[in-house]
């Protein structure tokens, strides 16, 4: 019954989306005004029903109802509970339902809480959001029904890709999806504003928290995904420029650009057409990303659903949405009056440069990701690797960081640069110290990592400059947010640069009892032993790593074997062992046993890395997300409301 109820809820939700859209169109075409009253409740109900359907899907996974095809294909009764739940979205149909749930809930939230927009713009926005939902409802209901029953229920399920059986991954896709789909609200706001021609500070201020919110989730999702790939894949890298990573980075870049341009529109009523275009681009990039992953257009470790037919469906959907929004933009944006003027040396000026750089990086990453497809269309076969991205994106990102130093120290409209010059020397001093220190004592370092560490030092100091000589308690939350996020960029940049400059790698075939040296560590390979997990068997090694100061730590890298279910081949995964030290991480991977020819003890392949400051990368990511959250809290004015309430209470207490 649960599955049938879920399907019924989805159909009702789809009908409600249809209702919102039609009612919206009727009102905007000057139809009866009372129809407008339908749009808000329908949007809210649509969100609630979709979320309920998603909850029912999770319930099916929790109960291991193998008569449902999706559960049978992706779950197993012996799987730990966390992975049963995560199994609900760890597959194509479930993740599309999650996508729709977020789409519906964001629409519902806008309907409930958005009070700043003009009434007709809000209706147009909600109608646009309903139109988005409607297409994806069609996709889900006609080509990937998650609630489909099997004629005969199998005795048990087929499990889940063991690579995906990791707590980190249980939360990674939902986080990223909230980010992706949150951008849909900005998209709908842009479409709504284009329809009613209300493009100005009010529209920008309404859109701003949504952009910020989804961007925070994208930041968290990308950071967590990078850490997951780092410890789970056992390759020791934290970013592979894999197509699927790139398509999550592209909406993030668009979101970052939008975040800064929307600030200009909200505060200074400038860059209006540009902000609208970025809002359209942001969600478009989310859709292109999903499309690339879902259609198997570019294959990679991440694609678990490869199906050209679904690809075609999604392509048509995107063609309608992106094409429609950009056409609307092309015709309406010319009617958008020029915004306020500003000098190049001003806050706006620096944000324009920020936007140009971010969109250029975005275009280059997108180009690299899609170039193999385009090149093939012209009869050439090419794959684009990390060298391309590092070469093109690296220098631009460094320049971007330098602009980030200046931007917050400039005033809106026009600036004489006095504050900038007054506060810059300390930052430049920090940069110069790091630069010369590295040249003198750092040994041979590539130019990009060297500049990376230098710029990181400059940014780290300069990012704190906006707090200089201010009463810290009076600094508004969004400013704190900006300072912390910019500081986070410096921390992440330092981590990336230091890791690539000073990484040490050892690969040995060692027998238990032997010792290996890597960087300053002496690693003793103590023993190997078989271990049985809940649904796998593993060979686990015990390593004792000793630092020069004499303290020792135990690491347990393991190689897990998941039995092949239903006649499939067994799958192996490497569980890397990590030792986090203040100076970096020791990363150990246990490889294949090497049978010895002469009958002595078996040797094992051991791969050891010393990765200096590597964890700063994710610390930086977390700081950026934290900065974003503070800014969001400030913007959503929760704190202001709370303070006002407290003040009122206090007044009442002292009232005579």
């Amino acid at each position, binding site marked *: 019954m649960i599955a049938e109820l879920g399907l019924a809820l989805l159909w009702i939700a789809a009908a409600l989306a249809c209702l919102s859209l039609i009612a919206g169109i009727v009102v905007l075409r000057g139809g009866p005004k009372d129809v407008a009253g339908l749009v808000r409740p329908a949007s809210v109900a649509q969100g609630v029903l979709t979320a309920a359907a998603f909850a029912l899907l999770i319930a099916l996974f929790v109960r291991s109802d193998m008569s449902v095809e999706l559960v049978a294909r992706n779950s197993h009764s012996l799987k730990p509970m966390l992975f049963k739940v995560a199994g609900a979205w760890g597959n194509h149909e479930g993740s599309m339902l999650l996508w729709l749930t977020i789409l519906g809930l964001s629409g519902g939230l806008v309907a409930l809480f958005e009070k700043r927009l003009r009434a007709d713009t809000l209706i147009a926005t909600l109608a646009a959001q309903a139109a988005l939902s409607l297409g994806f409802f069609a996709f889900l209901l006609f080509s990937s029904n998650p609630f489909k029953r099997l004629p005969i229920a199998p005795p048990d399920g087929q499990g889940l890709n063991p690579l995906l059986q990791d707590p980190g991954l249980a939360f990674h896709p939902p986080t990223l999806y909230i980010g992706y789909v949150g951008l849909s609200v900005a998209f709908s706001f842009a479409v709504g504003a284009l329809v009613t021609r209300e493009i100005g500070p009010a529209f920008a201020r309404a859109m701003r928290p949504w952009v910020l919110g989804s961007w925070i989730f994208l930041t968290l999702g990308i950071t967590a995904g990078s850490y997951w790939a780092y410890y789970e894949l056992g390759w020791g890298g934290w970013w592979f420029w894999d197509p699927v990573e790139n398509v999550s980075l592209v909406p993030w870049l668009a979101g970052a650009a939008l975040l800064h341009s929307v600030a200009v529109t909200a505060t200074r009523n400038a860059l209006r057409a540009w902000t609208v*275009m970025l809002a359209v681009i942001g969600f478009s990039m989310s859709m292109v990303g999903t499309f690339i992953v879902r259609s198997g257009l570019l294959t990679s470790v991440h694609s678990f659903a490869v199906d*050209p037919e679904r690809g075609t469906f999604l392509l048509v959907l995107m063609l309608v949405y992106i*094409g429609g929004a950009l056409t609307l933009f092309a015709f309406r944006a010319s009617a958008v009056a020029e915004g306020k003027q500003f000098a190049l040396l001003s806050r706006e000026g620096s944000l324009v440069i920020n936007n140009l750089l971010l969109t250029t990086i975005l275009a280059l990453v997108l180009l690299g990701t899609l170039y193999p497809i385009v090149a093939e269309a012209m009869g050439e076969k090419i794959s684009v690797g990390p060298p391309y991205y590092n070469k093109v994106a690296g220098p631009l990102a460094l320049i971007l960081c330098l602009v980030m130093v200046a931007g917050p120290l400039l005033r809106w409209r026009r600036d004489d640069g006095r504050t900038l010059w007054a506060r810059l020397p300390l930052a430049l001093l920090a940069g110069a110290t790091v630069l010369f220190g590295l040249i003198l004592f750092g040994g041979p370092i590539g130019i990009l990592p060297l500049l990376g560490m230098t710029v990181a030092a400059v940014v780290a100091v300069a990012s704190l400059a906006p707090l200089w000589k201010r009463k810290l308690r009076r600094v508004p939350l969004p400013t704190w947010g900006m300072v912390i996020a910019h500081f986070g960029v410096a921390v992440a940049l330092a981590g990336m640069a230091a890791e690539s400059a000073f990484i040490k790698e050892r690969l040995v075939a060692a027998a238990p009892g032997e010792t290996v040296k890597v960087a300053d560590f002496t690693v003793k390979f103590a023993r190997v032993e078989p271990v049985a997990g809940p649904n796998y068997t593993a060979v686990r090694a015990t390593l004792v790593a000793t630092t020069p100061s004499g303290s020792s730590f135990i690491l347990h890298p393991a190689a897990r074997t998941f039995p092949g279910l239903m006649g499939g081949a067994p799958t192996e995964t490497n569980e890397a062992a990590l030792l986090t030290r203040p100076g970096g991480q020791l990363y150990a991977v246990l490889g294949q046993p090497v049978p010895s020819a002469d009958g002595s003890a078996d040797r094992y392949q051991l791969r050891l890395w010393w990765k200096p400051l590597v964890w700063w990368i994710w610390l930086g990511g977390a700081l950026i997300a934290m900065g974003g959250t503070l800014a969001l809290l400030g913007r959503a004015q929760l704190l202001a409301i709370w303070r006002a309430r407290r003040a009122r209470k206090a007044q009442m207490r002292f009232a005579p």
Partner: protein
Amino acid sequence: MKRRWILFAPLAIMALLFGAFLYRLSVPDDRLIESQWIDKPMPLFDLPPATAGVAGLKSSDLADGRPRLVNVFASWCIPCRAEAPQLEALKAAGVPIDGIAIRDRPDDVAAFLRENGNPFDRIGSDVQSSVQIALGSSGVPETFLIDGKGIIREQIQGVILADDVPGIIARLEAMK
């Protein structure tokens, strides 16, 4: 009012992109890609012997100053048998050749060498195809031309034909 044509640029870019997507969806990918490893050092690996009597292979063996071939093969691969005479010819011409046996068993490798001759100085056993994947090799046989410093200079996908032999010898000579 003058229409600003620049505003149509995003639409045009999107049209181009979607054209490429459509093309790709209609023409499936055959996955033949040029190696990213050309002019890069061999990835780090250390493979155990594939069979008794022939040494295993590790990446540091490949940087001994002599340009050489690394042949990725398997006893279960029929084209590899067809390739054996060409490898023998290269061996006879003084070219050092190392092998990587993919997903193979020691007995099968021994039988393969008995039947087809053994042109290899060393054979590493890559049971999990991990080195093969790291090298970006998509099948067997494949042959890599390595210069004396362990840098990959060329990748030959598929069987080496009799006509290819003189060219390979010449290119390895040129690397000395």
